[in-house]
């Protein structure tokens, strides 16, 4: 019941916000903030409490249960969801002025869908939540930038059609399991017991992989991503980059590797190569952008490349690194998008060419951005450093060339991060921008995100103790004993 509460809270807050939005503009904001704060508190309490599972019947005729389960991996993601949920409400406090109630309804329902994805332990329920978040997310584009409707449509079509492929894969898996055991069930734990085999299993794995790769924005499945990230409202981009990309990575860890261990190990070199390619592609493209949000979008592709590399390297270090990077990227890149949104709110533009010399007028924003840029390039002490380092250590043990390519990507990140700071806050203030610095609300939000990045960067142990056992239990491991020299970190 407590687990369902994590989903029910935003689900109930949504209609309430919508209704109260007819009479008051601030009521929806406070309601959403309270719901997400409660969700966060609940998530922290559950983190301390430990694993948990709830199950109700849903469509028993087909073996579908309303099964939610919380383990070390999901609690991290749920906590991140609730945390970024709070930030998303705070970030749109001033930005959203019309139809406030409907906006918060969509925000809450997207968050509910994302939380459900991280909790579902029944494949159909998982798919249900996976699709549930799409429509409210699409509606969030209504409050977006210039090309919002095209961007929203692209997002919807990419994610929906890849999701349908996954549904087909889920169904085939269901009948394969039934054929092998005679039990018709979508239960994750049951399906885990009978690994798929045969040539069809490869196709099934791809069905899952494509759906997740689209959400992560792995090239060549990233066509929707730059436009969507750029033209969504700040809270929308925060959700897309901070959370939805993570649902893809989470899906790989939760479903692709454990359900298809053999096939995934076979595919691993390809997966790593895709990751390395994403790192380079994202880095290079980020370098050539003139739009701040678009640039951060490409850095996001690059970082999700690291996550993909870490997941498919499949070593204990690299996967832990991937999880840490997911959290660090959620906080740091999320904060960068909030920063881009705050700048746009003040300047009315996202063009890097028109910015410059803003440090004078907004030192608090400058300081925040500088820290975030350092996190982006993976400076020691930030979560990104730990994550990328562990990914590289793990990847090195599996494939030295790909690890080298990925390390090159880190050099690129130094260049584009410094260049970004240079163009936004340093140099001459050619257009004589004058605007208010971060308000108290924005300072607190930024400080919270910086705090998370620093905390994970300096003391990542809680993360690895939560996720580590889950990963070790469910992941197939390549046999690396031949070249294994060092022990566990």
């Amino acid at each position, binding site marked *: 019941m407590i687990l369902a509460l994590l989903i029910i809270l935003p689900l109930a807050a949504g209609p309430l916000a919508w209704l109260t939005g007819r009479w008051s503009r601030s009521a929806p904001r406070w309601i959403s903030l309270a719901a997400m704060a409660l969700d966060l508190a609940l998530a922290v309490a559950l983190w301390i409490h430990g694993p948990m599972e709830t199950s109700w019947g849903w469509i028993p*005729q087909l073996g579908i249960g309303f099964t939610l389960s919380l383990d070390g991996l999901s609690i991290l993601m749920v906590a991140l969801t609730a945390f970024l949920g709070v930030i998303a409400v705070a970030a749109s406090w001033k930005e959203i002025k019309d139809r406030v109630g409907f906006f918060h309804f969509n925000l809450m329902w997207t968050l509910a869908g994302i939380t459900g994805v991280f909790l579902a332990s029944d494949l159909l329920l998982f798919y249900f939540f996976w699709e*549930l978040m799409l429509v409210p997310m699409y509606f969030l584009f209504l409050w977006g930038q210039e090309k919002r409707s095209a961007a929203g449509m692209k997002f919807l079509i990419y994610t929906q*059609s890849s999701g349908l492929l996954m*549904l087909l894969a889920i*169904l085939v898996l269901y009948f394969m399991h039934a054929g092998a055991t005679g039990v018709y069930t979508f239960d994750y734990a049951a399906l885990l017991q009978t690994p798929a085999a045969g040539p069809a299993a490869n196709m099934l794995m791809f069905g899952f992989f494509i759906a997740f790769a689209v959400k992560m924005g792995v090239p060549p499945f990233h066509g929707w991503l730059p436009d969507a990230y750029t033209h969504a409202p700040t809270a929308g981009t925060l959700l897309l980059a901070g959370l939805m990309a993570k649902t893809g990575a989470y899906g790989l860890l939760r479903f692709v590797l454990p359900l298809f261990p053999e096939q995934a190990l076979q595919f691993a070199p390809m997966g790593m190569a895709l990751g390395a390619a994403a790192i380079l592609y994202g880095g290079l493209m980020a370098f050539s952008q003139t739009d701040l949000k678009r640039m951060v979008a490409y850095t996001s592709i690059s970082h999700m490349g690291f996550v993909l590399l870490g997941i498919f390297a499949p070593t204990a270090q690299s996967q832990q690194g991937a999880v840490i990077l997911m959290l660090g990227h959620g906080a740091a890149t999320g904060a960068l998008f909030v920063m881009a949104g705050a700048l746009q709110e003040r300047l009315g533009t996202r063009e890097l060419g028109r910015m410059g010399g803003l440090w004078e007028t907004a030192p608090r924003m400058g300081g925040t951005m500088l820290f975030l840029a350092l996190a982006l390039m993976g400076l020691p002490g930030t979560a990104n450093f730990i994550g990328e380092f562990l990914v590289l250590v793990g990847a090195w043990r599996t494939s030295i060339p790909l690890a080298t390519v990925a390390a090159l990507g880190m050099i690129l990140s130094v260049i584009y991060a410094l260049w970004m700071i240079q163009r936004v806050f340093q140099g001459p203030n050619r257009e004589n921008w004058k605007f208010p610095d971060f308000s108290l609300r924005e300072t607190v939000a930024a400080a919270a995100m910086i705090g998370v990045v620093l905390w994970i960067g300096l003391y990542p142990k809680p993360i690895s103790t939560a996720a580590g056992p889950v990963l070790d239990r469910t992941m197939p491991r390549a046999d690396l004993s031949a070249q294994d020299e060092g022990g566990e970190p």
Partner: protein
Amino acid sequence: MTFRDLLPLLPLMLPALTAVAILLLLAFHRSHRLTAWLAAGGLAAALLLIPFACEGAPRRFGALLVVDGCALFYTGIIMAAALAVAAFSYGYLARRRGHVEEFYVLLLLATTGGAVLTASSHFATFFLGLEVLTVALYTLIAYERGAFGIEAGVKYLVLAAVSTAALLFGVALIYAELGTMEFSKIASLLDAGAPVSLLMPAGVALILVGVGFKLALTPFHLWAPDVYQGAPAPTAAFLSTVSKGAVFAAAMRYLVPLDLPSHRSLWLAVAALAVVSMLAGNLLALRQGNIRRVLAYSSIAHMGYLAAMLLTGSPLATAAAMFYLLAYFVTSLGAWGVIAALSEKEGDAERIEDYRGLAGRHPWLAGALTLMLLSLAGMPLTAGFISKFFLLTAGVEGRLWAPMAALLLGSAIGIFYYVRIIAMLFAPQEDAPPVRATHWAAGAAIGALVLLLIALGVYPAPVLAIIQSLIAASS
């Protein structure tokens, strides 16, 4: 014959009796309100009788009719749909001039025809039901809409007559070949390996043409967009639900005993019809500027999805088809109900552009239409999601790879045009025309449909249990 024997047949008879009663009443007193109440009362009584009729089922009435659980299920949703159509009609017709009372008589007659179709077990009743349905529809389509209505009515008349002729000829060929017109006898003769000449496949193909026309499966769909555009909105609602649902139910009854997978060429023909309809319906809907035409093409695609279920004949496929039909009824009625509610005296709301900013002017109707469109697109929390999932499950079980691939592709395309309308609903609009209040009957019907849509989408287990028990009892 006692009353108890007659009970299973009562739901089929009540609408016809009500129609006669209304005709008698109209002879000396015209009242729109009274007529509508009478029609609604007759349909509601038929609907309420269905659980009692179930106790007497299954029951054969000679060789002509079989009233079993499945037939009563279809009859039930047909009566409920006709009731909803009557509710939409009241507000819609009240805004129009001229004699509106006969609309309900025709509605009741068409409903009777549909109900007879679902219970038919013989080509005679099949044809009788079909003709009662179709002849009533000619007038319903041309009712009260000037030149466009007449054009749509004539188009339907000509094409329906041709398709009926094809169907009749097919029936004659089969009769010439096997000497019987009973569905079950035909199936058992074929199972026993009765020698058949070329007449048999020719007859079946001609019947497929007739059925394909009624379901508007591509390439027999050419009438659908024009007729949907020209007919009054409540008629279009009826046409896309009751008319198609009844014919589909009859086709199911006729084709499932034939054990389609064992007749390769017939199987291929149905598969081709299904796949082509899914793709053509969705692709042609992409470029429409008129919401009625979008719904027409969307309905073609949905009938294609449904026709794929004829290909396996497994109990799961039958259950999936019945659930899908129910969900489709709810969704389609809801969408047409909103269109009917928004229609003014002069012309209906039909250009997609007319719907710009509806969310600001009429939040409840816009919300209902949004939910209906999301359900057509198969989004979660709506009936469309669950029903499409059942369909896919049955399809994968039956290894229908090509039709299922077409279904996925069609759904992916479909998102675009459904969401385009939704985007229009929520687009900002400056000079909003004044809002007219929706008649309470239509409002209540739309509200009930929305609740049903969400109930089916969130917790479908009870309905699925009912459907499965009906199938188990019928087989």
